[in-house]
């Protein structure tokens, strides 16, 4: 599939070298970054940017799910936004129906979405490549039609939980310990970090190796005794679980859900940002989240039309497919290193000249 052929896929360290020097350095960087995001950022950001950052965190988990499917297993799903909608729907329904603690509801909706998403993934067992991408897009279209007809739960009764009121819907509740925007941002980031850890554990352990084998060659994987059915479904289950959690976090963020948020066309935009971010690295998911939610906010603040972003996404898709299959998460540090080298070179050359003039 697409990504298996990528010539520049970065090599992952084998699980035996789990704690080599590079890893330790990376762990320190991540911990410092996380401490900054959790402790310093919320106090420093205005309410507006806190809201935006929460969305970035949520969508990077959605991107992580799709990135895992594409980069690790080689399965392209164009239905992840629909899965996100299912997650948000389930969370809202459960949250209105019961007084269970927030984390339990979140976990439950993740699990239910996992089951639903795996059902969507079932055709994946038989189909490959383009067909899988298109059939998931078809299913996403169908789910969008149903959601438009039924609406999201807003505190009503019955299975659908939707009631038309004249004024004011009930809001989906936030966790009791995270009622303010800053606290909810922290809560979201922690939940998202857990999802990234979950992904990391999978990638580094047996499933990761099985997925890599499937991605490179299914017949070879089969010959090597890899249970292809199991691991493909596993990948779908994992991606759907994460996306379900993201949906739950999204439902409680503003407390109101609208079908507009889950338009079928968003699946295509998600694919674009995930490709741009990079599908071989978990960092790529964060870059994707930034592209999906932070950059639009920045454009808006600079008074630029959001349509520019659509064009940028299009250019990004072509650019990634043609020249940089590993995406920005891989390309950017390399380019920066090169740029750094270039600057140092320039500086060295310029320095003597500077001495002469002064």
């Amino acid at each position, binding site marked *: 599939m697409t990504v298996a052929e990528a*010539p*520049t896929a970065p090599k992952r360290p084998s699980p035996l070298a789990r704690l080599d020097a590079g890893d330790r350095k990376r762990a320190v960087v991540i911990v410092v970054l996380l401490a900054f995001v959790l402790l310093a950022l919320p106090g420093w950001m*205005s*309410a*507006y940017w806190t*809201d*935006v950052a*929460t*969305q970035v965190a949520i969508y990077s988990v959605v991107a992580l799910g799709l990135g895992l499917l594409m980069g690790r297993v080689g399965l392209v799903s164009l239905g992840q936004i629909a899965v996100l909608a299912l997650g948000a729907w389930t969370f809202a329904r459960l949250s209105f129906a019961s007084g269970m603690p927030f984390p339990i509801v979140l976990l439950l909706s993740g699990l239910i979405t996992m089951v639903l998403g795996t059902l969507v993934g079932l055709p994946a067992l038989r189909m490959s490549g383009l067909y899988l991408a298109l059939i998931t897009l078809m299913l996403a279209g169908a789910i969008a*039609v149903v959601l*438009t*007809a039924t*609406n999201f739960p807003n505190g009503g009764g019955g299975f659908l939980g939707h009631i*038309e*009121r*004249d*004024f*004011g*819907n009930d809001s989906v509740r936030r966790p009791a310990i995270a009622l303010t*925007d800053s606290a909810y941002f922290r809560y979201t980031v922690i939940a998202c970090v857990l999802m990234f850890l979950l992904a990391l554990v999978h990638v580094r352990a047996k499933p990761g190796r099985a997925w890599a084998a499937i991605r490179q060659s299914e017949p070879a994987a089969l010959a090597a005794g890899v249970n292809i059915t199991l691991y493909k479904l596993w990948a779908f289950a994992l991606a759907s679980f994460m996306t379900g959690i993201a949906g739950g976090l*999204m439902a409680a*963020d*503003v*407390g*109101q*859900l*609208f*079908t*507009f*948020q889950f338009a079928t066309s968003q699946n295509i935009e998600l694919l674009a940002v995930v490709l741009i971010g990079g599908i071989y690295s978990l960092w790529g998911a964060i870059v994707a989240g930034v592209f999906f939610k932070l950059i639009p*906010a920045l454009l*808006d603040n600079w008074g630029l039309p*959001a349509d520019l972003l659509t064009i940028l996404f299009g*250019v990004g898709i*072509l650019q990634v497919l*043609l*020249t940089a299959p590993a995406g920005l998460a891989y390309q950017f540090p390399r380019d920066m290193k090169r740029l750094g080298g270039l600057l140092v070179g320039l500086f060295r050359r310029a320095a003597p000249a500077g001495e002469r003039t002064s």
Partner: protein
Amino acid sequence: MRTNLGPVWTRWILVIVAAFGLSLFTAACGGDDDDNGGGGGGGGGESFGGQAKTAASKCGLGNKKPATGEPIKIGAINTKQPGTDFSEIGRSAKAYFDCVNDNGGINGRPVQMILETEATDPAQAAAAAKKLVETDKVAGLVGNSSIIECAVNHKYYEANDYYVIGAGIAPECYGTSNFASVNMGPRHSVTGAAQYLIRQDVDKMVLLQSKVPGTEYIEGGFLALAKQEGVDTESLAEPVPIQDANSVALRIVQAAGQNGGVLLNFTPPEALKILQAAAQQGLEDRVKAWACSTPCNTDFLAKALGGAFDGKLGVNAELNLISADEPDTNLYKEVLKQYGKGISLGSFSQMGFLDARIATEAMLGIKGDVNKESVNEALEGVKGFKTDLLCKPWYYGDGPLHIPNNTDRTVTPKGDTMVIKEDCFEVSDADAPIKRVRDLEKKEGIYQPVGG
């Protein structure tokens, strides 16, 4: 595979050149667009401006002195996404404030308008409100119009004592103490259009609207009115964008029957699809009467229908016709011509203009410092604001809900424009919120009977 970067770069250069050529081409065409002042509407403005006999009102103080003091920040949030664009409301409010700034400002201080948009994303709508209130620290919110913004933000405005003047769409806009609209919103516009159908003596009314959150709220007044009048009803909703307008048009005509009436509640492009499909299938005369809520009130629609519905389609109009020769309407056309580059004449820009005009008059009346507290106090205190854009004076006040615009007209296409078919009439108080507002008006002593 990627070792030779040469061809790739040539390709990219090709793409960039092509994109550049394309943008030049469209820029050339776009230039024409601007010259015409935003398409057909702009042309209309010029001709109406030429015919105008009545002198236009003035922007603010009208002293032609540029305001130089410390700016007063005003914010607005509008929906803007492919297919749904309400940003004209905020932009035309800004156009009016720009005119005010060239005419003495708010007693010497200019108004700085901060426009935010959202793409029907609740997180974005909430963030935009927080940005305006907490980061920009705006003194007031004027010109808000969004599909979801009221639902998401009304509690926030209540908690922060902002009294918003905007153009409401979501049900919550008409159910909070802190939002007052210059329009009456889809529910009451649909009721008004249904009143027109009943006056056409139909025996059944079929309401078709876009399937968005709040459809059941919107049909509330329609159903209450039909029950009171003893007319059969059927209420249908269609997801938008409509891909099969022909089937949809057939369906509603069949549902209404020979003596029935059809009522559409859609944005102009979607309503146009259905009406065009009906015209192309020769369905105009298969029902007794056609009606449409406010969005259909644009000359563009009349022109696009090419006469097929002349006199046959009754469009509920919440605001006066653009072609009216009245002081405020003439000012509106002048402001748009001079300050509103790229904004087309129509209900949306009328609403933004009116929002800003009301806010300006309120702010000019502030004695002492103009700040968040005094601005919102002044906005809430607006009473008896007279304008020829509305049938009767507009007010805000401290009521638990606001529907100050509760009288409307019926217009119909004629040639390339809309013309008046029925002058001002009251929206029926068969609907509970209208009854409640009228009772409040009577209690306050500001009720004015209108028309007949």
